[in-house]
């Protein structure tokens, strides 16, 4: 029974090649709230499945999870579609949750780690939907210069992408910090792999922003974020920072 649970869990905490199913599903879901729900719930299902078995995870899971995370981080580097990019980063980060479980972290804690990864992705999905409404697609390198044409939107987008790539103070950073601390004693090599994956996320985030924010403004950018929407996003980001700071303190 346990191997079957692990297999199912590998679908929800995506490990390659099962991760392809999640990304295919995410690509087909166009409704923004549904996408958000998927990003929020999907890893939690995997964690819930794993919580049903008390069998320790095999050592094989370490290289498998690390390689999956690295593969999707690398793919995110070349991905120009914001939705696809979110899916790859989600896959990459959720795969790392296996490592936390292998290292003996409590399931509830790991569920919080997953939440730390998912929440910024929810905001990014919302922002992607905004871009799709304005330009027909959220795609880098096709229309640039959002910093000029949509300055408020751009500022929020930059902060959200920073949150997604686990920049300090955000919850994803706390998740990465906690997982790294957990794995170092048991498998330092895996910790190094995780850090490299983290580096790739940052690079991918910079490329994403470069393709959207920088450059000459497109004449048909449409209106910028309204004042209320800007405040709402700012408040949510502020809440994420507070949550992140608390989590970091708790990790340390």
């Amino acid at each position, binding site marked *: 029974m346990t191997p079957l649970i692990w297999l199912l869990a590998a679908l929800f905490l995506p490990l390659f090649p099962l991760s392809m199913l999640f990304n295919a599903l995410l690509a087909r879901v166009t409704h923004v709230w549904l996408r958000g729900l998927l990003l929020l719930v999907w890893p939690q299902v995997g964690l819930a499945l794993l919580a049903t078995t008390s069998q320790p995870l095999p050592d094989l899971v370490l290289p498998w999870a690390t390689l999956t995370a690295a593969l999707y981080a690398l793919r995110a580097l070349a991905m*120009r579609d914001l939705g*696809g990019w979110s899916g790859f980063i989600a896959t990459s980060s959720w795969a790392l949750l296996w490592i936390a479980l292998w290292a003996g972290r409590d399931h509830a804690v790991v569920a919080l780690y997953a939440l730390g990864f998912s929440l910024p992705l929810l905001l990014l999905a919302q922002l992607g939907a905004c871009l799709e409404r304005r*330009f*027909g697609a959220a*795609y880098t*390198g*096709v*229309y640039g210069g959002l910093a000029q044409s949509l300055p408020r939107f751009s500022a929020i987008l930059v902060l959200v992408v920073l949150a997604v790539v686990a920049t300090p103070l955000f919850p994803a950073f706390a998740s990465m910090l906690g997982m790294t601390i957990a794995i170092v004693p048991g498998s330092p090599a895996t910790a190094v792999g995780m850090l490299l994956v983290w580096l790739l996320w940052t690079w991918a985030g910079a490329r994403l922003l470069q393709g959207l924010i920088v450059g000459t403004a497109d*004449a048909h950018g449409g209106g910028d974020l309204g004042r209320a929407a800007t405040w709402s996003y700012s408040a949510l980001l502020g809440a994420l920072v507070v949550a992140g700071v608390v989590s970091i303190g708790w990790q340390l």
Partner: protein
Amino acid sequence: MSISLGEKLRIRAMVYTAGEPIPYFWPMRSFIHHNPLHGLEDLPFADAVEAGQRLFRARTFLTRRVYQDYLRDGSVDVDTLAAGVARFLADRPGAPGIDLQARLMALLTAPADAADGVPGGGLARGDAVHAALHGERPDAADAMPRVAGRLHAELSHGRPLYEAADSLYGTKIGQELDELVIKSCLDFFDEGQSVWGMPGREQGFFNAWRALARRDARLSLRGLHVKRLLSNDDCPEAVIVHVLEVLQIPEAQWVAYFTRELARLHGWAGFVRWRASAPQYAWGRLYPADLVDYLAVRLTLALALLSERGPKDLPRSVPALSAQIETRTGEMFLRHELYSGGVLPAMARRIEQALARGRDSAIRGVFDAYLPAKVADQASRQVQRLRQLTGDTAALRALSPAQLDDLLDTLDAFERHEGMLWLRAMEAAAITRLLENVSLAPVQARDKRPFVQALFCIDTRSERIRRHLEGVGDYQTYGIAGFFGVPVSFIELGKGSETHLCPVLLTPKNLVLEMTASVPTGEALTALEKVTHELKESVLTPFVTVEAIGLLFGFDMIGKTLAPRSYNRWRRQLRQGKPSTHLLLDKLSREQADSVVRAVQRAVIAKAIEHEFKLAPEHVTDDMVRALREAAMGHQPDNAASQLLPGLDRKAEQAFVERLRTEYRINPAFAQLQLERLGRIGFSLDEQTRFVSQALQSIGLTGDFSRFVLLVGHGSTSENNPFESALDCGACGGNHGLVSARVLAQMANKPQVRRRLATQGIAIADDVWFVPALHDTTTDDITLVDLELLPPSHLVYLDRLKTGLIAAARLCAQERVPTLTIDQQPLDAAAAYFGARRNAMDWSQVRPEWGLSRNAYFVIGRRALTEQFALDGRAFLHSYDYRVDSKLRLLDNILTGPLVVGQWINMEHYFSTTDNERFGSGSKVYHNVAGRFGVMTGNLGDLRTGLPAQTVLNKGEPFHQPMRLITLIEAPFEHARRAVEGVVAVKRLVRNGWIRMIVLDPETSLVHIFAAGEWHSQSKAGFGADEELKRIGAI
């Protein structure tokens, strides 16, 4: 592969021709304003800007919105604009039911967001637009035949192959190539910024690069195998031929191909081009390079990158590219859409996935879906454009597809033409304003001479200070080119190289040396600075230096930032000021030159003895030195000195004499060379008289000289500003003008010169004294120099003079400084003066002054013409009195030198404003000095050639109003016309419309303007309202 001499020369000729449109780039130590499209001046202005736009991918006019702002503030003549539209429509088909004249005027003048059109070459033309207007879906089948043609037009026609590959496959070969070329250039052309220099630079750019590239690990790590490419060819010409043959570029296209390659990094190419044409440039003589070298390096790297980068099917030759477009049109179209930024965002991912999978059927399927969507999108945008034009959909619906096609053609052509219409209308307003305000009233006779006559540079910044100086007292001012008509090659005290103090069009024949009798002191501080420099510049010490003395630099930073004026004053006190100097201005006689050479030789021999035999100076006798010199020069046998050098045998003495000849260059040949060089020093009495006479006559100052005649050169003061020399005097080759002023003053104060001038009818009284001065254009201070030479009789007037100069400076600052502040609020004179001085010392100030920004006019005539008209620092004012120039010699000189320099300055400002990124140099904030001769944006980029944003833009909007130089000559028409037609360079500029030339005839009060290929006349009073002149586009 080696090629024949003839073939080499042919390639060189091709590269030379290809390089002509690339503007020179002078090292920034002496910034030279130049026209970025100088190489296209053979073309009419409108054609040249179109060609320049294509070549440099740059904007050559402002946006419609900015012109509309000018229209609102009265800087545009709306009648001229309307006349321009009518002229444009005269040979265009009309559109039934649409008043195109009214609609185009409305389009121009009504503020609205510009519709994002697809001018020329779009896939949606008349049929598609017709369908879209009637609510139908356009038929994409009509567009299909245009797809391949559009791809050929976009990707071929002289465009580098890697650019085509980049826009089809998303590779970044062009970017990588530029980076590699820039790194190679930085290595080779470095002028002392790098601690470690590139080896083998004496062999020339290509050879040095070739030797290094064959073992360059950086290239190998990038996977570039240039060694194989370079091993086949031994000279740059052969490399160029080889690369073009591999790429299979037809020979007929080589020149165009070279030009496109050079234009990609036109700053570096312009620098290489200038360097190769400047034989006097020391670095160029040491490390030679030319455009053939540069192209050989560039093409080698381009071929290597094309071979190594991208997928297998990347086109690696021109025929391969054409074949791909013909056989895989759909795929190439999708690729081009995706990678050149034209793709419909909604389909971008689908296209990317189909292309990534590479299945023909999938690609075809996506293409079949994409093309109709693209055509519909373009049709909808065209409809939007047309609606914006007509404001009426019903009228558009009534048009047939063919009529819609015509209308779109008209609109496309109009948008291409629009810039010229705005430009002419702006110039018309400016010309009218000038002519309304200039005065032809006769000058009233004076009963006494003015207190001071002051000769200022024609620079636009002199206009303000002249106006204020005239306002504060009995001052009479004149405008003359800032080198005062004396081309000088100058060697400054303590410098070893010559600086040309004249417009770059001239090459000075005479050399002036600066000398001092003072003994330099302050070695301790100099040594300290040297040590600090060494610590900062060496390879390892910076790691320690930061820890050890970094804090000291912190204090320096705080001082410079928080109290720039006081801190800099204190720092200057630490430094030894420049001692009082004299200029060696008179020609040496043969005997004097011999004596100088002998003195130098004796000093060298004495030092050689001290150095080689460790003798104390007191043991080196004159006899010993004389004997050795005679021996070395061959005047005596080598052993003649044997008794004078104690402890040396005959053989050793002979060896020393030989060393004196070879190593210390004490020999007849070198002495002769030194004599020839000394022959360049100074001016003969005839030359001095001629220069003074010419300078005074050219401005009409031939009598009634004041007690003081100020010769005011100008320069600027700023901190931390690589563009400082751009603010100095253009007529002095980008240097400050004080030396030129001192040179002319020294000549004019000489009694022998004055006696000769008197015989020419220029009587200068004995109590007239020419005083050199420097106008600091950042602070507006005018500093008098060489006052120790002033006759005692003048000292009592000095205080009054200085008070007047300070008053003028304060008033000038009050007028000028508010334009430099953020809120642009008026300031009182004291605050403005303080602000100006702070600007000069503030290291964080990116805009110490506006320089020549907003220049628009060049007035050649008497001061009375513009005396009552505040030109706001927008005019070059050259004094001229046609009555003393019956032979046109003086006017010819003004047109040949100052006017051409003015036109360069004007065009530099024009294009730096219309496209600051391509023709200008962007924001100063991101600049880094490159190789000590230029600046780059960031750490790697093209040399920035034009003016920085802070000079021509204010808060992102143009501060400079880009217009062609409006030149007004006050002289009888026939007199001026003959001069203009007689100077070939100026005639070409006028005929091709690079200068707007106007002649104001004081004898008939008629205005003559050159437009549409001929001269047109009108009375001064009726000029601005002349409908005919507006109709033909003259105003």
